């Protein structure tokens, strides 16, 4: 299977921002994604809210609540993507919990992703052991199932890495999403371990919020995922968020590109 995501990491460090779909509303989400895409995002990760997001901290939980208040459903999110697709071909992935995909129907969901050009799925409550039920459908429609590797993965890294396509989401620290000032000490080792088994790119996420941190993480991995910090901006600025997201994206892009230059 040809991944749409892997080539994004060629020759530069990838910036992967996250927003919750329909937070605070349909139009702002479309504009937020476009602002991120036009200011240096390589892949935009769209969260599909779930009633009980056990891997997420308060910032993303609150965003989910705002999205629910504005009447979010999976079909509405597909409409958001269709609207984005009229103006941008930025690679998109969904982050959601398995029950949302299960209820929609694995085949129907993956088919819809393919039709709208959504290239991958990140599902925090679907560990390696449970991916078999979704994988055949993801394969059928060319959707990458982006796995998570954490500081506790240990001997599990081998099988996770070997099955990975697209990229590998490396979780920076234990616990849940939310901005952090420090990360697990052994991220270097973690990435080196992954490298033993695959050349699928890695991106570090959970807690990154400053350009300096993005720079630091990009030194270790192939890309940086930024969630809560961006969702925070959406919370703060509401419908005016696109402007602020664009500016923030630019700062992160610059930091990552400096990184790439230093590395040469």
């Amino acid at each position: 299977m040809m991944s749409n995501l892997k080539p994004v990491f060629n020759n530069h460090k990838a910036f992967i921002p996250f927003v919750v779909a329909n937070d605070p509303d349909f139009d702002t989400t479309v504009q937020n994604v476009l602002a991120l895409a036009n200011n240096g995002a390589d892949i935009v990760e769209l969260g599909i809210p779930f009633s009980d997001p056990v891997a997420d901290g308060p910032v993303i939980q609150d965003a989910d609540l705002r999205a629910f208040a504005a009447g979010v459903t999976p079909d509405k999110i597909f409409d958001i993507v269709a609207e984005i697709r009229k103006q941008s071909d930025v690679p998109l992935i969904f982050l959601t919990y398995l029950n949302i995909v299960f209820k929609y129907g694995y085949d129907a969901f993956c088919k819809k992703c393919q039709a709208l050009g959504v290239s991958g799925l990140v599902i925090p409550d679907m560990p390696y052991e449970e991916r078999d039920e979704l994988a055949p459908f993801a394969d059928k429609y060319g959707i990458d199932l982006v796995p998570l590797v954490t500081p506790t993965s240990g001997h599990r890294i081998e099988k996770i890495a070997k099955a990975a396509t697209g990229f590998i989401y490396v979780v920076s620290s234990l616990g849940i999403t939310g901005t952090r000032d420090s990360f697990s000490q052994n991220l270097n080792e973690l990435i080196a371990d992954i490298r033993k088994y695959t050349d699928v790119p890695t991106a570090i996420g959970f807690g990154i919020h400053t350009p300096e941190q993005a720079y630091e993480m990009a030194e270790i991995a192939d890309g940086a995922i930024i969630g809560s910090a961006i969702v925070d901006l959406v919370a703060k600025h509401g419908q005016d968020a696109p402007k602020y997201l664009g500016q923030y994206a630019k700062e992160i892009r610059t930091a990552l590109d400096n990184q790439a230059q230093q590395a040469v």
Partner: protein
Amino acid sequence: MKNMVEKEKLGRYGKFGGQYIPETLMNELEIIAAEYHKLKDDPAFQKELKDLLVNYANRPSLLYYAENMTKDLGGAKIYLKREDLNHTGAHKINNVIGQALVAKHLGKKRLIAETGAGQHGVATATIAALMGLECEVFMGKEDTERQKLNVYRMELLGAKVHAVTSGSMVLKDAVNATMQEWASRVDDTFYILGSAVGPYPFPEMVHDFQSVISKEAKVQLQAQEHTLPDMVVACVGGGSNAIGTFADFIDDPSVQLVGVEAAGKGVDTDETAATIERGSIGVFHGMKSMFLQDKNGQIDKVYSISAGLDYPGVGPEHAALADAGRAQYVGITDDESVQAFEYIAKTEGIIAAVESCHAIAYVEKIAPTMSKDQIIICTLSGRGDKDVASIAKYKGVSIDDE
């Protein structure tokens, strides 16, 4: 050449069960499963477990012939399995002792737990005190208000109680919060899950540790009646006392297994917790099972007068037993359970937990339709002291609880 047996997926009950949990916790689940399977077959561990069950928790619990109820209802003979007489007042202690021993063998220093009615939290705080471990309990804010007495009991036992303010602030939110806490600190911490739910190996451990209920009951009934029961009945929140009540009878096809869910204001209303009757298959809290949810897969707010049954899911083994038609699941409303609370108090002199009274209410309905030579065992999962204030409130009686 060896037989090419297809490797069975871990922790499956038919199409239910599994390990749908963030990667951060997967390694720990592997460690727990391996340790548990080692200990399970270790006579020294079994001895340790038995010693605590007998000398600390007051087992075996009585199998009590409820003669007054039997006469009054005029049908099947009714036996009550008195888990309410255990130390800490509910069946929860059976599982907590077992899991806490596993935690101790893993060298853990800190126990965390969710709780609904507070019984599981109290049991966990109790064992933590006994074993000299730290303990933190997560409880929905609404439940901390419904069950104030249990909050204070936990604090007396040295536990820290966190009132969970996310979501609907009841049991499911407490489970979410406990899982989050565990994900952020797994190295020295063991999550003592209080019901037959969650990712493998929890449903299996809870089944095994609660099966003492049916193992004892079978022997006790044999001694008193020289026969198997015709029916066993237990209330179902996540399903731990029910799976314990069913466990040793599952392979006896003549024994009817009945789980009683909380129907709240009615199975057909939106204010219900009757998961198997009203729910659909889904993935949540680490398991594939039955859940109350909307068509998009968002988990419903559930409702019951009983904080211990107020849960939108059910253990995967129950989902499989229902699917296979081996067990039946019925709903009992708030009104019916409150009536049963008063009924068993007046007829048998037992103040039973409002959770357990859901099972009693079903017995009141079914016993008269059965013949006098038939036997029902109903598990009284807990005592009702914790519920007295809220039942009074429900009845519009004001009591001074200052």
